[in-house]
């Protein structure tokens, strides 16, 4: 039994196995938003480390996919957790309490996609300038007209 199955055992989830050689992912699960924190707690106690938190914007289906990547130091087992939300106002739970490293990833995804991570201690932006009012990785993003906002 792989580490992923062991960790997710009590959540009665069956991860969708993927062909590792073709995708580089060992498993993928699609869950509901409120399941994320309990699952992360199991993953944390099983020693899974957080690779990244990101999202994929689907313009045609009007869905914002929140993605969480986990892996394990002892045995390679990359797990991708997917939560789907409406792309109008996507809200995902924050896992910054469990995985402190997630805070930065969440800050980045939040400003790139306009996602709200509920319960995050730190809601500031990370990489973009402080005064931006757009989310560049949204698929309907149009480049704003070139403007100089002042020399800092």
């Amino acid at each position, binding site marked *: 039994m792989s580490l992923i199955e062991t960790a997710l055992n009590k959540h009665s989830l069956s991860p969708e196995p993927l062909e590792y*050689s*073709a*995708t*580089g*992912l060992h498993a993928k699960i699609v869950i509901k938003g409120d399941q994320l924190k309990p699952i992360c707690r199991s993953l*944390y106690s099983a*020693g*899974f*480390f*957080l*690779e*990244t938190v*990101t999202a*994929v*914007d689907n313009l045609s289906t009007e869905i914002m996919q929140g*993605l969480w*990547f986990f*892996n394990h*130091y*002892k*045995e*390679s087992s*990359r797990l*991708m957790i997917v939560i789907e939300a409406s792309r109008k106002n996507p809200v995902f739970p924050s896992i910054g309490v*469990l*995985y*402190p*490293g997630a*805070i*930065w*990833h969440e800050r980045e995804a939040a400003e*790139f996609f306009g996602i709200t991570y509920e319960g995050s201690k730190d809601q500031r*932006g*990370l*990489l*973009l*300038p402080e005064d931006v009012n757009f989310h*560049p*990785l949204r698929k309907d993003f149009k480049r704003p007209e070139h403007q100089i906002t002042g020399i800092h």
Partner: protein
Amino acid sequence: MFESQTAPTYHLETVEEQENDFILNLGPQHPGTHGVLRVILHMDGEYILTADPVLGYGHRMQEKIAENMTWSQVLPYMARMDYLSALSYNQAWVCLVEKMCEYEVPRRAEYIRVLTTELNRISSHLLWFGAFLLDLGAFTPFLHAFEDRETLLDLLESLTGSRLTYCFFRFGGVGADVDAAFLRGAQDFVKQMHTKLPRYHELVTGNVIFRERTRDVGVILPFDTWGYGLSGPVLRGSGEQYDVRTSEPYSIYPELDFNVPVEQSGDCLARYLVRLNEIDESLKIIEQTLANMPEGPIKSKVPKIIKPPEGEASMAVETPRGELMIYAVSDGGKVPYRVKYRVPSFANLSIFSKMARGQLLADALAILGSLDLVIPEIDR
């Protein structure tokens, strides 16, 4: 020689940001941050109460750029993220596309890839070695390391055409074949490093001031590692034997015989030793690839226009700084639908504010140096 066995830390019972705190704005232009990193420090005298890194000064929105480029046009941008280990990034991208499109790679090309990537890893570690000691106030090792790095850069330049921002790997192979002069140069370099590494250890590792400055400074405890997603030498300094080259083997790494150096103490000295030992291991790998370099083509036939089938894939490689993971989504078109770079320095820097709390300013800069950050990689 010196009395203090452990680094003194500030007792943080009363840390509340106050209006008349001494706030030191470290960077974005500061000799100790090696790039455009800014850290806002709340201090009490020389002690740091809180440290808040401010990122984004070198931000170029690489992920959006990738969404506007064809799959092959993205390749040159790889070298612009981590300019010190451009070939590892090259490898991650070509391997990802090869995985999605199921391209074959000739054996000789794989050997050349591993050979050049390991040379690149040594040059990155050599630069780190110099820069870290510069942070500790020793100037000379920097130029000694650069002397060795110079031969390495000349060598790679003769093969790839550039000194730093290589764009050498191709989908299904590499850009150029190695010639006898390159192989001889690589052999000479290995010989040179075998005499130089013991000298580095003699001059720096054994120095009492150096040991006192790095031992027990910036300790990363093992139970912090996975919460912050650390990887690379920063992780291996804390006793976790995780290296993508062995845990998720790619290319010809499973056939090669090398160790993953690990140190248990988790301090700056441990990270230093891990990196220096990694140079040794890389030399081992280079020797093996030089000895077993197969004959044959260096590039397989791939279509001119690359259109990976619809789907998603991820590819992880071990850069000198840790685990780089690229996740890409293809909609079957000529341009990637979504590309996500999971860069090692980003996660490794996120633990800095925790490590810097209660430390002296001098130690905080030693810690920052020991993390081996490349800021354009963090900012992307």
